[in-house]
């Protein structure tokens, strides 16, 4: 209370400071008069009174905010100094804007993807729960297992299950494909997330399957599709043609529990059977404990550690496994539980991007360091130029501390301005980063690169700009505030050799910039080479002019018969289109999510614990023709491989070699799937290996089944066009709409685009590192140029004398160049050593290139040497062209 009213009185006084001043003046005058009347003479009174101006000043200062006022003065002065040196200010601001902008943009991405905890109650108690049942077996849980874990565990306050899945939302006749998160009914209550509008799911809605068609909307969808209308609660929407009632809207900050995801809708797990074509007993049946599909997230009971939870769950898992013995010998009888930190949710979407992001964050940190060094060296140059000013201020009574504070205020002002410019720049840098779209997954959720600026990011930017300002201003301020008074005041000519110490600091800073730039450049070179190698990988198929697009007729209520008819008709119509060379269907797009299964050849005895996982795809006739994947033995599927005919399969060479080495696979049988859902199929063809999920994969066995025999509602049309795929796209789209205008078409792209986007982490790293490398290089060049130019200007007098005494321009050039070259060389050596140590860290990101790749090192060295020598040459040339007479005359005048 006291402090507040004190501040209020003080502010009022400060506001009326002119009136206050007048009052104090009058008061002191009266005092003096009264004193004069009491003592002998006015002179004696004044003598006894002391200095009235000082008393006034002291009394007045009590009312003010002297610290703030000095700060304000310093800021005004600093601003004037910046305006007076526009060249320096421009270069410094640009360096800072780039450095801080890049950091802000990177941080906003890293923060949202990797650092930030879920906006839920006590996120630190959340854990990711997974059960391992053997090599190559998914760690997700079946519904039956989840229910047992949820109800019988003794370590969690709550256990939730989620599954990512795309849906078709229809509402007011408009269909749209949206991201969904299928969640157990206890999801919102266990997480402690309250709906922004309406409510979450109720306990009674989580009892029986298929009886409570309710959904909670994501905040983004609510805003985008429903304009933030509060009357959306109670509204009916249709998901995959099934009617649901909206009961609530999730809060804006809550983006589900899969890091990097952004669900548009939360669908109760028990309603999942209503929106997918998979048979209910496969999803929810008590028999199916083997095919896991649910991701689990638990809230630990207070005081329970992760280790205790893992032990408790393993005991429970063993009990359940004993009660329901597995028919598959390849599976571990008793699951082993892994309990990991879940405060940031499930990490499956951000797994691939984590390391590239971390590396890029470290790189932009280096860039900011370079910018700091750059500005520090420019400030040092200015400190030299401002020695006279500082000397005068010291001579007239300013304290050194006061000067240091003044100079630091200037550099912090500079970096604050740079940060403001950097924030503007960050927005466009963010735009570039998010343009590297991650591969869009087929039916499941996709990664959303979210890097909007918010208060956390602004706080980060503010913090780094303050640190930057102090970091780059401290050394120059300390140097500047300690001028050698006498020569500085006399404006004496600096003779070479003098102030050696400061020059060394300048050179050190430039060498440091060179060193950091080399490191970034080497990293960029490695990533570019790695990307080239990746692009050169043989995919095993020909992506040129192949167009893909997906539809899901199952979601529009088609049964198997109608679906088969639809696809047959679509294939026929598309085939007839002009400009279409070949067309087929597949469930999986190459280099996409992929779909895993297990397979073994009949008569093949697997080793105990052998990984029998394989890639799996349901395809139409002529698929390998469209993809230009050679059939090495047997045949492709034809129209005749229908449900009435024997079940057939096509396998890749890796599978054939593994199960029947040296023998023909044709006519032999493969068993696909795990008991009790296993199926035996006769191999009718063997195809060449190709890449299925990613370019860098080791090809594993793959099995293809005929679409007519293993029908699915969601299929992707594969069209090889004769000319421009874009033209074919429009034509094929028309055909689909002619058959069913209400079907949403998604995943529209060419296989070339699919290939490019599958490399997005490498492309992101290569593109950003190259940009950052060039940035670092130009910053270092500016720094070197600035310091060299300064040195030359300080040595004008000396150079003039040398030239007057008959030195050749060439000799002068050599002297100046020698210094620049030494600095560049020193920086290069340090940088190469640093790069040698540092690039080992990014080994995991590189493909086909070693972290000490001589090419990358040589290229970076060459580039830097060229640019560095040019930056040193220009001032040297300038020096050699000095007019000796003028140089000498100027320094004497």
């Amino acid at each position, binding site marked *: 209370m006291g402090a507040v009213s*004190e501040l209020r009185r003080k502010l009022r006084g400060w506001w009326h400071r002119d009136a206050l001043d007048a009052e104090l003046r009058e008061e002191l005058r009266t*005092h003096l008069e009264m004193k004069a009347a009491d003592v002998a003479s006015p002179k004696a009174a004044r003598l006894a009174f002391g200095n009235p101006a000082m*008393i006034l000043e002291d*009394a007045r200062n*009590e009312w003010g905010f002297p610290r703030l006022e000095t700060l304000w003065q310093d800021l005004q002065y600093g601003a004037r100094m910046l305006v007076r040196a526009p060249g320096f200010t421009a270069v410094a601001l640009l360096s800072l804007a780039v450095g801080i902008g890049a950091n802000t943009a990177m941080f906003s991405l890293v923060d949202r993807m990797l650092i930030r905890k879920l906006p839920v109650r006590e996120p630190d108690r959340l854990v990711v729960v997974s059960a391992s049942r053997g090599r190559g077996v998914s760690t997700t849980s079946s519904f039956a297992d989840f229910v047992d874990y949820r109800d019988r565990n003794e370590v969690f306050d709550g256990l939730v299950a989620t599954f990512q899945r795309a849906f078709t939302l229809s509402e007011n006749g408009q269909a749209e494909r949206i991201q969904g998160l299928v969640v157990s009914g206890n999801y919102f209550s266990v997480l402690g997330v309250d709906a922004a509008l309406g409510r979450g799911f109720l306990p009674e809605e989580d009892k029986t399957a298929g009886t409570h068609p309710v959904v909670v909307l994501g905040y983004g969808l609510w805003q985008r599709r429903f304009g933030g209308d509060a009357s959306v609660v109670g509204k009916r929407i249709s998901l995959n043609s099934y009617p649901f009632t909206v009961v609530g809207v999730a809060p804006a900050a809550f983006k589900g529990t899969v890091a990097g995801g952004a669900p548009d809708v939360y669908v109760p797990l028990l309603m999942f059977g209503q929106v997918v074509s998979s048979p209910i007993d496969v999803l929810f049946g008590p028999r199916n404990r083997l095919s896991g599909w649910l991701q689990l997230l638990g809230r630990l009971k207070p005081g329970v550690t992760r280790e205790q939870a893992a032990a408790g769950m393993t005991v429970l898992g063993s009990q359940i496994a004993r009660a329901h013995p597995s028919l598959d010998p390849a599976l571990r009888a008793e699951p082993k539980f892994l309990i990991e930190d879940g405060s940031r949710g499930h990490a499956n979407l951000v797994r691939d991007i984590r390391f590239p992001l971390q590396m890029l964050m470290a790189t932009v940190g280096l860039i900011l360091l370079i910018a700091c060094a750059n500005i520090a060296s420019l400030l040092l140059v200015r400190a030299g130029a401002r020695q006279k000013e500082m000397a005068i201020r010291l001579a007239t009574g300013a304290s050194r501390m006061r000067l240091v504070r003044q100079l630091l205020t200037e550099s912090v002002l500079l970096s604050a301005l740079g940060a403001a410019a950097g924030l503007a720049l960050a927005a466009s840098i963010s735009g570039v980063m998010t343009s590297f779209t991650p591969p869009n997954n087929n039916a499941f959720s996709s990664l959303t690169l979210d890097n909007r600026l918010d208060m956390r990011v602004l706080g980060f930017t503010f913090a780094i700009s303050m640190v930057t300002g102090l970091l780059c201003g401290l050394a120059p301020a300390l140097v500047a505030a300690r001028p050698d008074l006498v020569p500085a005041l006399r404006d004496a000519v600096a003779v070479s050799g003098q102030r050696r110490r400061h020059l060394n600091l300048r050179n050190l800073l430039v060498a440091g910039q060179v060193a950091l730039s080399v490191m970034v450049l080497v990293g960029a070179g490695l990533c570019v080479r790695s990307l080239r190698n990746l692009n050169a990988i043989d995919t095993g198929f020909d992506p040129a002019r192949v167009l893909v697009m997906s539809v899901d007729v199952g979601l529009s209520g088609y049964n198997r018969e109608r679906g088969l008819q639809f696809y047959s008709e679509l294939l026929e119509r598309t085939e007839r289109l002009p400009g279409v060379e070949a067309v087929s269907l597949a469930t999986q797009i190459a280099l996409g999510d992929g779909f895993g299964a297990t397979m073994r050849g009949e008569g093949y005895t697997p080793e105990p614990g052998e990984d029998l996982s394989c890639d799996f795809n349901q395809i139409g006739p002529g698929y390998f023709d469209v993809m230009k994947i050679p059939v090495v033995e047997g045949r492709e599927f034809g129209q005749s491989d229908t449900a009435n005919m024997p079940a057939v399969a096509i396998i890749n060479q890796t599978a054939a070699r593994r199960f029947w080495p040296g023998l023909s696979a044709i006519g032999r049988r493969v068993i696909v799937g795990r008991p009790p859902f296993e199926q035996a199929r006769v191999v009718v063809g063997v195809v060449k290996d190709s890449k299925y999920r990613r370019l860098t994969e080791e090809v594993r066995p793959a099995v293809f089944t005929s679409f007519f025999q293993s029908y699915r509602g969601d299929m992707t049309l594969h069209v090889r066009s004769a000319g421009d795929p874009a033209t074919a796209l429009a034509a094929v789209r028309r055909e689909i709409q002619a058959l069913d205008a209400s079907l949403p078409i998604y995943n529209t792209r060419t296989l070339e685009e699919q290939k490019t986007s599958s490399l997005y982490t490498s492309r992101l790293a290569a593109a950003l590192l190259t940009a950052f490398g060039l940035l670092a290089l130009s910053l270092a060049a500016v720094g070197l140029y600035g310091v060299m130019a300064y040195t030359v200007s300080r040595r004008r007098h000396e150079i003039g004398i040398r030239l007057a005494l008959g030195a050749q321009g060439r000799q002068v050039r050599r002297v100046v160049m020698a210094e620049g070259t030494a600095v560049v060389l020193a920086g290069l050596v340090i940088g190469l050593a640093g790069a040698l140590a540092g690039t080992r860290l990014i080994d995991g990101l590189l493909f086909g290139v070693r972290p000490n790749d001589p090419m990358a090192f040589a290229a970076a060295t060459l580039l830097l040497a060229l640019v560095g020598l040019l930056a040193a040459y220009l001032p040297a040339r300038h020096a050699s062209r000095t007019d000796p007479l003028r140089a000498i005359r100027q320094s004497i005048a």
Partner: protein
Amino acid sequence: MKTEIPPGTLYMLVLKTLTRLGPMHGYGIALHIQQTTSDVLQVEEGTLYPALQRMLIKGWVGAEWRVTENKRRARYYVLTPAGREQLAAEVAHFERAITAVRQVIEPA
């Protein structure tokens, strides 16, 4: 003989003076302290006026312009209730301190 005002006691002296004299101007306060102590304590103007400003800010005293007996306009300082509390606290503190000091130095 002149003696410096013991550190930290100026507020107390000013506040006490105001309780004795009622509202008073700066010169009157200084004069009173000097006379009451038989010229032992002299209040410098350079100390007094900044201190009075601080006391205004802290709300221990108020100020108003009045006309003196000699028809001069002068700023009179008036004790506030907060000032009275502060005086009591400072006197108590001072006496505790002085008693303690005596205990150290007296039984010589």
